[in-house]
């Protein structure tokens, strides 16, 4: 029912703030940089952490899906953008699009944006599988109590409503309501009783829920926030590392290194960019490196 499953590795045993900060910074950097070297570096880092967290199998599904998307982006970009100078293929004239001309630059730009998309999708994958949704909600509830409660309530009530829905379908089938036969509008009409029952029952339940919350003092004053998440040295290490990478990234962006002009002709890759990107990647890979050490040396495990 819940996609999250606790695993025994360092990534799963981080403070939710650390994990959220890590994912957030990757996401932010992927938006700041359009330079392919930096983007590739970010992909490498997030991939390493996902594998370290034991979610390679889940990531593969995301990857398959995104690679199709990237190919589509590349093809569309290559067909429609004609500003690249290194023409690889020149074809016949087609109405609306004009003359087919596929350039290396347009393909490279498509690939670069594809990698950015891949980084973003991967960071979401990490966010989905490596941190318990409740703990994230809890983290944010310090700032926005009511909206978080609404979200929690929906997660709590959703499985209940699904169960209700199937039960009511069964009950109404026993009264001769046909859901599987007849034209689509007849079936749509037949679903109405189910929806009505569901609505009326949910309304009754919400009143009872409100009563129970009232009886437990909800809304009686300023709430505090319960948390049993612990801060460990590993959290500080990871936070320092990702902060360093963020600061380096911002500095590189201020220096004008974040962008890369694909058109009209691909410029040469600067060695300095590779060095800076390597540093950022190394810092972002700290959780994966710590996890590796964590598994290898019990002493390190006990220290961090």
């Amino acid at each position, binding site marked *: 029912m819940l996609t999250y499953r606790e695993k025994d590795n360092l990534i799963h045993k981080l403070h939710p703030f650390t994990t959220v900060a890590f994912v957030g910074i990757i996401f932010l950097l992927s938006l700041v940089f359009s330079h392919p070297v930096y983007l590739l570096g970010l992909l490498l880092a997030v991939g390493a952490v996902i594998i370290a967290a034991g979610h390679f199998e889940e990531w593969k599904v995301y990857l398959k899906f995104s690679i199709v998307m990237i190919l589509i982006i590349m093809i569309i970009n290559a067909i429609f953008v004609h500003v690249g100078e290194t023409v690889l293929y020149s074809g016949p004239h087609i109405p609306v699009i004009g003359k087919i001309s596929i350039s290396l630059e347009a393909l490279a730009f498509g690939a670069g944006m594809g990698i950015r998309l891949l980084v973003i999708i991967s960071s979401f994958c990490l966010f989905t599988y490596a941190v318990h949704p409740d703990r994230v909600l809890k983290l944010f509830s310090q700032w926005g109590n009511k909206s978080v409660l609404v979200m929690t309530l929906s997660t*709590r009530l959703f499985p209940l409503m699904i169960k209700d829905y199937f039960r009511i379908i*069964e009950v109404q089938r026993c009264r*001769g309501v046909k859901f599987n036969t007849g034209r689509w509008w007849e079936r749509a009409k037949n679903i109405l009783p189910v929806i009505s*029952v569901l609505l009326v029952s949910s309304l009754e339940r919400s009143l009872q829920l409100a009563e129970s919350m009232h009886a*437990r003092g909800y809304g009686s004053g300023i*709430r*505090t926030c319960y948390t049993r998440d612990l801060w460990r040295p590993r959290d500080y290490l990871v936070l320092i590392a990702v902060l360093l990478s963020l600061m380096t990234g911002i500095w590189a962006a201020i220096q004008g290194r974040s962008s890369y002009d694909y058109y009209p002709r691909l410029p040469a890759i600067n060695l300095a960019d590779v060095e800076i990107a390597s540093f950022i990647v190394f810092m972002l890979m700290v959780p994966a490196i710590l996890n590796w050490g964590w598994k290898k040396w019990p002493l390190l495990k006990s220290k961090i």
Partner: protein
Amino acid sequence: MAAIKVKDLSYYYPDNKKAAVERIDLEIPEGQFVLVVGGSGSGKSTLIRAIAGLIPEFYGGAYGGNVYLDDKEIRQFERRELVQKVGMVFQDPESQLVMTNVEQEIAFGLENLGLSNDLMIRRVIEFTSALNLSDSLPSFIPELSGGQKQKVALASVLAMQPDILLLDEPTSQLDPIAGEEILTMIRRLNEENGITVVLIEQRLERCFHLADRILVMDKGKIVYDHHAPEAIAHWAIKNNYPFIPPLAKLFASIGYPEIPVTVKQGRCILKSNKIPDQITNPRLVALVPKPEEVEISEQECLVDMQHLWFSYPNGEEILKDINLRINPGDFIVLMGENGSGKTTLMKNINGLLKPGRGQLKALNKDMKKSSVEEIASVVAYLSQDPNDYLFLPTVQEELAFTLNNLGLVDNGISQATLTRLKLNSQAEKNPRDLSTGERQRVALASVLVSSPKLLMLDEPTRGLDYSLKDELGKILLQLQADGTAILVITHDVEFAAEYADKIILMAQGTIIARGSKYAMLSNSTFYSPQISKLFNNIVDGPVTLKQGQDVLRKIMALNKKQALLV
């Protein structure tokens, strides 16, 4: 000092001209365990909601009189102070849990109180270990069983450390084992921690002996208030009041001077009498019908199940090699633990699930090829929650809806059904505005209107009080007399003992025992009603109240005679 003092309390729900409670005066000293009994609509829930301060604060309405907690008027309490004084556990675990996991749920109330994180952690850990929930701390609440959910609800209220614990039928949605666990916990809290408890319960056989004091409510008033269960039992028999457990009812109804509240006490009383040797005394043995062998007749049967197997698509076997025949006029009760396959068996019979291996014929239709819609008019099914049926504006329309769907004509059948279920005066009312018992009868009417040959009911007694159960039982007996076969799933041994003919016991997907109720219920330790437990190994056979009364009368008469002879 009285922990709770209610003075001249009257209350009307908004837009309601009838008082829910009227001129109630009540004092409950600290540490008392009070059991409130009464039928639905008697004002029990209203009374405890007034003690919790939910009435009038949450409900509004017209309010008169006063409620004091430790001599302070309830409306003078700050809400935060009040919720730390009284805690309330509600009936349905599903509609009182707010968070997604157990730990957060228990912390929810504490957060509302604005407690410090250290204190919250301490309370959460303390109360989960006290209620044996430590292992479930990180569990996702929708994945817990009903009993565990109710335990979480209890823990989350207790963590706020109230002096007074109010419980509104906390076990009515649970199976007997889970229910018993909750009641035992409440008793322990009362005994070991001195918490004042006010409990509303319907399964009196489980809690009559736990209470220090019993309040009987009717029509918004406290009609009887006594600390001794014996006095209540005598009073109830005299006033023909149904809310006493079977054991007390048995002794009180024949005018026995002592009234036991537990089976142990009852057996002591019995043994203090001279019991004629039950085996050699033909008069006593003759009192109870001989357990008859269940012979499956060869006549045209309604349901014929041979070597039936059923598995879900994930391969999990739910039914294993089931053989069962249901004949017209049968009254069969299916019993067994949760997850033993009872409901799955029912859903196979009416076509909601497709049978796997083996043969299943319902009214000569092969259920592998028929769907639920095809046999809905002859095999009726009433699920656990009557609310799932009710959505139309009037009771009458609910019945017409079924007839219309099944393509049947209303040749006076809906009127006859309404009359049979005593719903005539409710025909034009909205079913959602009716009481629990009435809602169930409307749901029952909506499936009975097609004059089915087989009626299947899944846990029909859940949440019903004694008088409603009695009403339901009588309706079922009438239907049975008309030749309708009845198949009931229930955990309620007392109900099965009183009304069923045959009992089938299921476990882990197989039928482990079957037979007449006399054979099945009189020799079992757990699946037996209070009356059988009372007479077990003393007199063989009695299962129903009537039989118990006959045997007890004989014993009394014999002892009187002997006393005279001496």
